[in-house]
């Protein structure tokens, strides 16, 4: 094999290193392996599918990352839900800064295997949130837990972390 052809391998692999980043995401999307929640349209939900025979406890957690002077809390800490039905939870955020601040919430669901059945029709995490100085804001999340979720799961934790988008 000629050295020039060989040199193509490292060049390719350098690109592959970067390609790993989206590849992991695609892989996790397909397999639902890394706890990322899904998003569906409200119209897709079939109201006749509610499984009232099962009750699952959903707990809410709210955190802010360093650098964002926000106080961030769920209004209710937990809910009992039936698979297939749409629920709404409200999170309240209050800025302690005098300036306008910008944040982005990143969701995570545990156990990881619940994530692919945990779908949201509306979420403050879909967009950036801007708070004026000292502003308080109530933000809803509308979600539905799919009926396909494993029988072993009795409790799901939905956690949000707000990250600062202010540069500098």
């Amino acid at each position: 094999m000629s050295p020039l052809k060989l040199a193509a391998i490292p060049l390719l692999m350098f690109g592959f290193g970067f390609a790993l980043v989206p590849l992991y995401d695609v892989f996790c999307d397909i397999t639902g392996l890394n706890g990322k929640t899904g998003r569906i349209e409200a119209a897709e939900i079939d109201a006749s599918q509610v499984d009232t025979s099962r009750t699952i406890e959903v707990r809410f957690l709210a955190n802010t990352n360093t650098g964002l002077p926000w106080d961030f809390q769920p209004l209710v800490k937990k809910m009992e839900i039936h698979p297939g039905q749409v629920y709404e939870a409200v999170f309240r955020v209050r800025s302690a800064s005098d300036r306008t601040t910008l944040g982005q919430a990143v969701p995570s669901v545990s156990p990881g295997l619940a994530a692919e059945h945990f779908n949201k029709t509306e979420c403050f995490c879909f967009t950036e949130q801007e708070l004026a100085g000292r502003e308080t804001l109530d933000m809803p999340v509308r979600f539905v837990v799919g009926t396909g979720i494993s029988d072993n799961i009795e409790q799901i934790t939905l956690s949000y972390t707000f990250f600062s988008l202010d540069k500098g």
Partner: protein
Amino acid sequence: MYTETTHDAAHGEHHDHGPAKGLMRWVTTTNHKDIGTLYLWLAFIMLLYGGSMAMIIRLELFQPGLQWVEPHFFNQMTTMHGLVMVFGAIMPAFVGLANWLVPIMIGAPDMALPRMNNWSFWILPFAFTMLASTTFMEGGAPAFGWTFYAPLSTTFAPDTTDFFIFAVHLMGISSVMGAINIIATILNMRAPGMTLMKMPLFVWTWLITAYLLIAVMPVLAGAVTMMLTDRHFGTSFFDAAGGGDPVMFQHVFWFFGHPEVYIMILPAFGVISAIIPTFARKPLFGYSSMVYATASIAILSFMVWAHHMFTVGMPVAGELYFMYATILISVPTGVKVFNWVTTMWKGSMTFETPMLWALGFIVMFTIGGFSGLMLGVAPVDTQYHDTYFVVAHFHYVLVTGALYSIIAAFYYWVPKWTGHMYDEKLGKIHFWWSTIAVNVLFFPQHFVGLAGMPRRIPDYSLQFAEFNAISSIGGFAFGLAQVFFLYIVIKTIRGGEKATAQVWEGATGLEFEQLPSPPPYHSFTEAPPVR
């Protein structure tokens, strides 16, 4: 580039000139033997440099509490020790062996790309000087562990990290060039009759290692490039605030990192496969199974990386897959150990120094393999992860594995290289001294690890005190033994009993059958006959 080599070879036939005189010989050399020697010396210097940092670590850990160094400096020591040993000592030592041995084992006049060879070497002293100089800069040397996990190495790292990134890029370029050179040499420059399945196993293992290198060093380069752009150019590969993921760093790093550990052990398998048959006076048992085992280890090594990440919160399916895949690797590894043992079975064995180091390798590398198996079991790794048990594991495979094979190779081939026998008595003292010391050093680390002592921390709870004191004493003794080794090396180069061409009674291979000891500066300018 090809014509350049053939031209050089033809040139050599007209007037067989020796090396140039003076210091410039080493700077401008394109001779594979010179470059092999340069690599080996660089590796030795790095071994002593990395070793002196290990002495500082063991000094601080001799007693609980903080005695000698600041915690931040301690972290710099563990980080730099790891980086220097992996990239500065073990890898260059194997490249040095490849430079010296591959051409004379396959009957080639030199490496395929001699000028690039000079470059691959001379990049390294600059890379390591740059890396080492960060110790004296504001912010200090890298202190985030040799695995440089984000965000410690991105958001929270000092400015000197950029020198580290540049140094890693240089090492990567050097390794990739070296690997391309080795592949091109092995595939194109074998003497007529030297078919692939007649090649010595050292050549085979290096061919496969070189492919691993060109496949994964660029991924490492990608990882540090992402770090660089995260640090300075506003990207968020590893920063959740911008939609990235710090765990992603670990995936990318270990996609490089696990094949990397095999880069550091496959050439060792080749060395041991050369030494054992010589001193057992029997041909290697199961040559072709050795080749296939090496190849399957290399392929499998791409599929097990997340066994370093069992505790990041992977789903059970992932844990199970990586656990089974990891444990699967022990099958081809077991084949190798089996073949070495079977080679010795009913052989007429003698125990000269190289054989002692090779036997030490087999026994202690296997201990490291067993602790690796334990770590590969996902549910128990939750307890072992990031404890001294992991430290014990990888030092058994790297020190008593990789380093032992390098030292074995030195004793085995140095009479060929220099024409002088080393001092047998000193060699044996070196072996027993090192072997006792290294076990006193690393064996107790299994126990403190199982009992929960975390790695990379300058202080520890009182119940670990005795084992740490023992470990430190072993450490100092092992360090001193390698200074003694330096004396043996210099003594052997300067003189000693004349070595015969075959050197060892049972030695086979072109370098022992077709070349005098030492070989001429330009050897095999005409292809040798291959049986």
